[in-house]
C-alpha cells in the first residue's frame, strides 16, 4: 500500500482530475502528439516558442492518472523556460522516474512527487509520454511520437 501511496500522491491525483493548461493553444507555433499504442494514452502538446523560450504551453488528450498529471505538471514547470532548459529538465525527470537519482534533482521542483514511479517500471512510459511529445514539438518533429 505504501508504494501505491507513493505513486498516487495527492498532488498527482489532484492534477489528474483538474489538469492545468488543458487547452489547445490558439497561437501555438509548435505542436506534437504522443501516443502509447499499448494502453491507448494519447496527448497533444502545444507550444508557443518565442526567442527560444516557451512563452506558452498547453496540452489535450486522454490517458491514465500518471500520464495526465505528468503532462499537467510539465506544462506548469516549463512555462517561461528555454528550449535547452526544458530538454535538461526532461533528462532529470527521466532519471527520476527510472530510479537513476545520481543527477541534480533540484531543478525538478514539484515534479519530485513522481519519484514513486520508479517502483513501477511498467508505468515509466505513462509518466514520460507528454514529455516525449514535448521534445518532438521542441525539435519540430511533426510525426506522432510513440513510446513503443
Amino acid at each position, binding site marked *: 500500500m505504501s508504494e501505491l501511496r507513493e505513486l*498516487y500522491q495527492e498532488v498527482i491525483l489532484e492534477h489528474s482530475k483538474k489538469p492545468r493548461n488543458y487547452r489547445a493553444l490558439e497561437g501555438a507555433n509548435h505542436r506534437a502528439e504522443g501516443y502509447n499504442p499499448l494502453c491507448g*494514452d494519447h496527448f497533444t502538446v502545444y507550444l508557443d516558442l518565442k526567442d527560444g523560450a516557451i512563452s506558452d504551453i498547453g496540452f489535450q488528450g486522454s490517458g491514465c492518472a500518471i500520464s495526465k498529471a505528468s503532462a499537467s505538471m510539465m506544462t506548469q514547470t516549463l512555462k517561461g523556460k528555454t528550449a535547452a532548459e526544458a530538454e535538461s529538465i526532461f533528462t532529470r525527470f527521466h532519471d527520476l522516474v527510472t530510479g537513476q537519482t545520481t543527477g541534480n534533482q533540484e531543478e525538478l521542483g514539484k515534479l519530485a512527487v513522481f519519484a514513486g514511479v520508479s517502483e513501477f517500471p511498467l508505468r515509466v512510459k505513462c509518466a514520460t509520454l507528454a514529455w516525449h511529445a514535448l521534445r518532438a514539438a521542441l525539435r519540430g518533429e511533426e510525426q506522432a511520437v510513440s513510446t513503443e
Partner: protein
Amino acid sequence: MSTVVKTPQETHVARGFDVQKVRKDFPVLNQKVHGKPLVYLDNAATTQKPVRVIEAIENYYRHDNSNIHRGVHALSERATEAYENVRIAAQKFLNAADSKEIIFVRGTTEGINLVAQTYGRKNVGAGDEVLITAMEHHSNIVPWQLLCDEKGAKLKVAPINDRGELLLEEFEKLLGPKTKIVAVGHLSNALGTINPVREIVRMAHAHKIPVLVDGAQAAPRMPVDVQELDCDFYAISGHKMYAPTGIGVLYGKTRLLEAMPPYQGGGDMIASVTFDKTIYNRLPYKFEAGTPNIADTIGLGAAIEYLNGLGMERIECHEADVLTYATREVEAIPGVRIVGTAREKAGVLSFVMDDIHPHDIGTILDREGIAVRTGHHCAQPVMQRFNIPATARASFGLYNTREEVDALVAGIHKVREVMG
C-alpha cells in the same frame, strides 16, 4: 442489462469438477505476488500450464528428442509417433473428419495468415470483398487487410450492437457475389461474446462463401465440433488452452486444403525436388515446411489429454458459474460499467470505472496480487465502437474460483480508495 450466461442451477454438470484439486495441477498458481496470493485473471491473454504439460515437454527432451519424418532410428520413430499422435488428438478434440485436416502452426495468428496468403491470394481478386465483424482481434483483421491491399479487394465489417452482439441481419446483407471469404471470431477476447457460428456459416454457405473461424478463445472454454459448425477453417492457439506458446492448429476441410497452394517452402512439405520442378507433399505436410515445433506439439497433446480428462462440458459449466457470479458482483459496484453484455457470453469480463483509467486499475489490482489485462486487448476497433480508450479485463480459466472473484471485487474497492 444483466448478462445471462448460465444460472448456477444449470451447472449440475460441473459437479465432479473439484476446482481446488484442479488448482494443484498448476504450480504457477501457488505463489504470492506483492505479498498477496496470486489471483490470475488474464487467461484470455495466455493460460497457465498444468504439470502434465510441463513434464511432457521435459520428458521429450530427456528421452525422445529427435527430428521427425526422416530418421530410421529409434528416437526419430518415437518422436514421429508422439508428434503424429497429437494430430489425431487434435482431430478428435475439434471433431475433424480426418487427421490430415489438422495443420500444425505457431498459433491462431499464423493459421489465419496461412489461409489469407494461400486460399486468399488464390481466390480474392480486385474488387472482391472479405467480410469480418466489428469485434475481431487484430489478428483476424490485419492479415485480411494485407491481402486486400495487395489484391485491390475491400474489407467489409459487419456491425455489432451496444451489447457487443453481431447484428446477424446486417451481416447477411453484406454477403454477396463479391464476397470471397468470411472470417469471424468464435468468442470475442475483448467482450466475451459468443458468435452464432453455425448460423453465420449457414448464411455464408448459401452464397457458397467459405468461413474461417478464429477459435483462440473458444477452444479452451467449450466443446468445439467443426463438422457440426460446418466451418471451412478453424484456428486455435495452444497457449490459450493450457499448452505451450508457439504451437497451434489450423483445421481446414480437405477439399479446400487440397486446392490451396503451399504456404511456405522447405523440407517436409515436398514429395520430390528437382531444379525443374518440385512436387508438393500430400496433406497435411504440404503446409508444414521445415522442422516443426515438436516439443511444444507434444505439450499440446498433453494439454488436450488434460482437458479431455476434465471434460470440456464440465469446464464450460464451471467457468459459466464463475463468470455469472463475477458479472453480478462487479456490476453491483457503484461507478463500474461492464463492456460487453452479450446474452451468449463466456470467459471475459471487461469493465471501466467512471473517471479512473484502466491502466491505474491494473496497477492497483497488481499490488493486490490480481493479474488482469488493461488496454485495448488487440481490438482497437472494438474500443472505438464503444467510444472508450481501453478497458480493464478479467478473463477466467478452468482454475478460477468464486473466492478469486471476491478478491477482484475487494481489489476494485481498493482502486476507488486509492484514486479517491
